């Protein structure tokens, strides 16, 4: 038999999942927080997540948000646990590096909000590269 029997391109189905109301809300809020174009974030998610994780995205995101409140304030603002464990956008190693850099920035005397913004910028760069 010629042609692929099983490895069908699933992007259309994955896109159908991502466009439902709650998924759309989650993608929009992540895109807004990290300042990534929504289309690029959706594309990235379709490329990297399996369908089950995509389906479960809203529940994980809400759960991650709740867990975020228990973390130390700076990490919570960057979304250290949210973007590695709940919605695995970047790896743990990358997040460690970003955390260290943000802490260094704060030590240098940058205001905390600025440092967090810089941290989010770094997350964005990791995702978009």
């Amino acid at each position, binding site marked *: 038999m010629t042609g692929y029997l099983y490895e*069908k391109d699933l992007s259309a189905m994955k896109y159908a999942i991502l466009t439902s109301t709650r998924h759309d809300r989650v993608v929009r809020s992540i895109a807004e927080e990290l300042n990534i174009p929504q289309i690029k974030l959706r594309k990235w998610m379709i490329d990297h997540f399996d369908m089950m994780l995509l389906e479960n995205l809203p529940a994980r995101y809400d759960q991650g948000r709740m867990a975020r409140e228990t973390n130390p304030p700076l990490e919570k603002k960057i979304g250290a646990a949210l973007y590695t464990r709940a919605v695995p956008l970047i790896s743990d190693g990358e997040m460690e590096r970003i955390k260290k850099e943000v802490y260094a920035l704060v030590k240098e005397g940058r205001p905390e909000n600025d440092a967090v913004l810089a941290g989010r910028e770094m997350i964005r760069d990791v995702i978009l590269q």
Partner: protein
Amino acid sequence: MSLLQSVKNLVRSHSIHVAYVDVGSCNGCDIEVLACLSPRYDIEQYGIYVHNNPREADILLVIGAYTPGWEEKLHTLWEKIPDPKAAIAIGNCPISGCLFNRPHSLVDPPVSKHIPIAAEVPGCPPRPTEILSAVLSLAPLVFKDYEVAKR
């Protein structure tokens, strides 16, 4: 009729292997097919054996309204079933799409567009007894004197 043919008829009438495939239903018909297995209906007393292997099946029960995931897969599955074979549509979904056949839905009913359907059991969902009687009444029509009819 040759001796061989009568032996084949005898064997086929007491051994019907059934596979079921869900091509996008609500699950209700699925569990009614499973309920046929239960000791109350006891599908195996008629020599019907339900398992999910298309390669040794005689009858394919198609459940559901045909979703895009099954394009190219359902037909391949149908081809894998050895002759003689027949497909039965269980429930309203494969017949008409039931209430999923509305604007903006993703389904593409009826299933008879995609594979040949020999019998239909309407209902949402049909009772296990109806499924059972459909299989039992279709089987002799398809399998009896199959080689003679083919010629």
